[in-house]
């Protein structure tokens, strides 16, 4: 196992603080700038919040798995659930000029990560792949 960390948490919002803290610590280990680290924490938090809200429809007793894989050229986060399959063509943030509650999460994710991709080969549930291309000191 090389530079591959995994966490599995219940789909309860109270565990999102763990997601942020692990994301932040991993970014820190790889000497990612503080600003980018904060943006990544927000992005991964939003992706997990969407799993709770949409894939699990608020059920707080399911499981979310996050895999962090760091290469010389990219920071990868893979988020897996066993919930309702996302209709990927319906996933988009709101028009930023259409001021209303909600619809910002996807923007916050795509602001940081170059790749936002659902792995359609996963049979049950979802596997969201987030990739940020960058040079990483290892």
């Amino acid at each position: 196992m090389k530079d591959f960390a995994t966490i599995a948490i219940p789909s309860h919002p109270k565990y999102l603080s763990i997601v942020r803290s692990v994301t932040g610590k991993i970014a820190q280990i790889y000497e990612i700038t503080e600003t980018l680290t904060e943006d990544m924490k927000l992005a991964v938090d939003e992706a997990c919040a969407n799993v709770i809200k949409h894939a699990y429809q608020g059920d707080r007793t399911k499981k979310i798995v996050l895999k962090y894989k760091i290469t010389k050229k990219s920071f990868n986060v893979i988020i897996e659930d066993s919930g309702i399959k996302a209709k990927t063509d319906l996933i988009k943030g709101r028009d930023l000029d259409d001021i209303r509650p909600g619809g910002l999460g996807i923007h916050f994710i795509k602001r940081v990560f170059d790749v936002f991709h659902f792995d359609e080969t996963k049979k049950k549930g979802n596997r969201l792949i987030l990739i940020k291309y960058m040079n990483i000191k290892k």
Partner: protein
Amino acid sequence: MNIGIASYKGSKVIQLSGDIDMYSSPELRTELMGLIKKRISPLYVDFKEVSYIDSSGIATFVEGLKIMKTYDGRLRLFCIPQGIMEIFRFSKLDRVFEIYGSIDDAINS
């Protein structure tokens, strides 16, 4: 997240600290809606000790603002830390909310 309600020069100030996320924002929503129901205006929110806000926290303020607009209420945010200000700016919400550098700026404007 912690919420305190303070009075400053006769105005109501919501003082927030810590992380506002999907876990804590329902509590913020309850407090905010309580004050909005009483039609308190202007309503001030102190962001100085806020370490984090996600889309659920922002949605809570957008929702509050929308309701307050129906009765010409004013929602004024102040002392927003730089990282959080970036999020407001990116979301184009810096043009929607009244944002001030300090409580006195907010009150005297």
